[in-house]
């Protein structure tokens, strides 16, 4: 209708359904399900579209850690809990990748949507707030799990890994990626610029991860430092995950899973409350 060829001709009528009467509208449950799948597909497409930024960096970093700390220095470190140091290191590195990627995916995707205003596509749609939160969270989980698989594959090039409890590995990975996806969502809601988006990862997440037992067992720490470490939730996540591989943990594994579950529930409620109030996204 807009082409020069038919400028003077009357444009064809749009092929629309007759809207003069109320036509069949999908049920809210159907809208919710299809909408949720759409958000997840969109997030997955985004991850794959920019795979060089989303998937590869963690594999490169992990390779460096394994070469330097695992192969070169690890031989001199000794055998924590009766395992090679590199075997002790691998679960921590995988978990570190899950944490940073789940968090980073949601914070950058949701903040990008806010910044580019296309978050409005979702806000004006009939999707419930909990579906929007869940959709973004699933995007974070997908990236966390994909990177975890990649890092695991890289690690297997350096050492063989025992599997003590597969269920614990999967549960710890999923709960951790869920918790940090939600945390990323909350960060993105509050962030007003790119600097604010990076404050938490740099000043909170990285120190907590490094002091969360990725590279060492807290049993080697002095009493006061060990007590402080028990206030770090990432310690519980890494130890639960490591337990799944090696069957050893610095903390009670059931307590770790309870803490992770509680954290997920609390962060989900907080995310939902913030979105319902429109913090950072609605006037």
């Amino acid at each position: 209708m807009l082409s020069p060829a038919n400028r003077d001709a009357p444009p064809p009528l749009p092929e629309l359904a007759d809207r003069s009467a109320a036509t069949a509208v999908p049920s809210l449950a159907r809208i919710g399900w299809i909408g949720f799948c759409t958000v997840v597909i969109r997030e997955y497409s985004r991850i794959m579209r920019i795979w060089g930024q989303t998937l590869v960096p963690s594999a490169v970093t992990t390779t460096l850690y394994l070469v330097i700390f695992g192969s070169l220095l690890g031989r001199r470190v000794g055998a924590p809990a009766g395992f090679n140091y590199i075997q002790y290191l691998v679960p921590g590195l995988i978990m570190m990748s899950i944490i940073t990627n789940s968090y980073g995916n949601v914070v950058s995707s949701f903040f990008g949507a806010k910044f580019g205003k296309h978050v409005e596509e979702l806000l004006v749609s009939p999707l419930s707030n909990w579906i929007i939160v869940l959709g973004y969270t699933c995007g974070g989980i997908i990236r966390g799990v994909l990177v975890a698989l990649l890092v695991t594959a890289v690690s297997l090039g350096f050492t063989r890994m025992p599997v003590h409890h597969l269920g614990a590995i999967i549960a710890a990975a999923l709960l951790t990626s869920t918790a940090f996806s939600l945390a990323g969502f909350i960060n993105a809601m509050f962030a007003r610029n790119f600097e604010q988006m990076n404050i938490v990862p740099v000043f909170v997440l990285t120190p907590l991860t490094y002091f969360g037992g990725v590279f060492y067992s807290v049993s080697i720490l002095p009493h006061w430092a060990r007590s402080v470490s028990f206030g770090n939730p990432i310690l519980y996540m890494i130890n639960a995950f490591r337990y799944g591989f090696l069957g050893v943990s610095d903390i009670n594994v059931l307590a770790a899973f309870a803490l992770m579950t509680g954290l997920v529930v609390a962060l989900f409620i907080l995310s939902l409350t913030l979105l319902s109030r429109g913090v950072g996204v609605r006037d």
Partner: protein
Amino acid sequence: MLALSTRALTKTYKNGVQALRGVDLDVDQGDFFALLGPNGAGKTTLIGIVTSLVNKTGGTAQIFGHDIDRELERAKSCIGIVPQEINFNQFESPMTIVVNQAGFYGVPRGEARRRAERYLKQLQLWDKRNGAARGLSGGMKRRLMIARALMHEPRLLILDEPTAGVDIEIRRSMWEFLRAINERGTTIILTTHYLEEAETLCRNIAIIDGGAIIERDRMDNLLRRLNTATFVLNTRERTPQAPQVEGFAMRLVDAHTLEVEISKEQNLNELFAHLSTLGVNVLSMRNKVNRLEEIFMRLVENRDA
């Protein structure tokens, strides 16, 4: 049935600005409705509340009977919105943008692809469907937002200055497109600064200023209320001063241009007869501003006064 109904709608922003002061507005199903007002009058805030992008301070709003406080999701499923500012992901392709949008409204992916083909073709975007949307021209981006808003075939289409920055040729073809959509039963609410656009397309009109509706009428009724119109006359010969014609207020704009104000009781034949007697030959004539613009300016200026 009413497509939109608001009662005592108020909005006060955190900075204290009172954007809406108790707006009562009804828009009938099937209407092509103009919502006009100067910048900062409250149009976009009103649309923002209806589409849930802005939290209201007080009052109620219903979309096809669905209250936005009690049935927000159901209310939103009836609306398609074309916002004032570009708000799609410019790194995605037009195809992805419209298919995803349909998904957010519960349209399955297969059906969404069929509709995407239909609307992108009708809006001349089919050839551009797979490139990044940031590569589209301004007019194409506007058309993409219209295609996106139609993907779930909404019962109420809200267009917030849809033709801003679009050249006249494309604007007119967009008018035809929108008129056709309205004829098929979709209710349309249009805000625009092109008053010719509102006059051409819309059957009913509301004028909002200072957060309140100051006029609400049928378009033809409103235009009939115009008591005087100002015409611009182009003359063949140089005219050194404005001719004195009894009963007509004339003003010289330049040597070949006159302005004359004519009331409802007067007629142009009488004016031309007088001018002919005075030896003034008129080559062409036009309205100084379009009729709606004249009424709009008077209403808004009266309020300011």
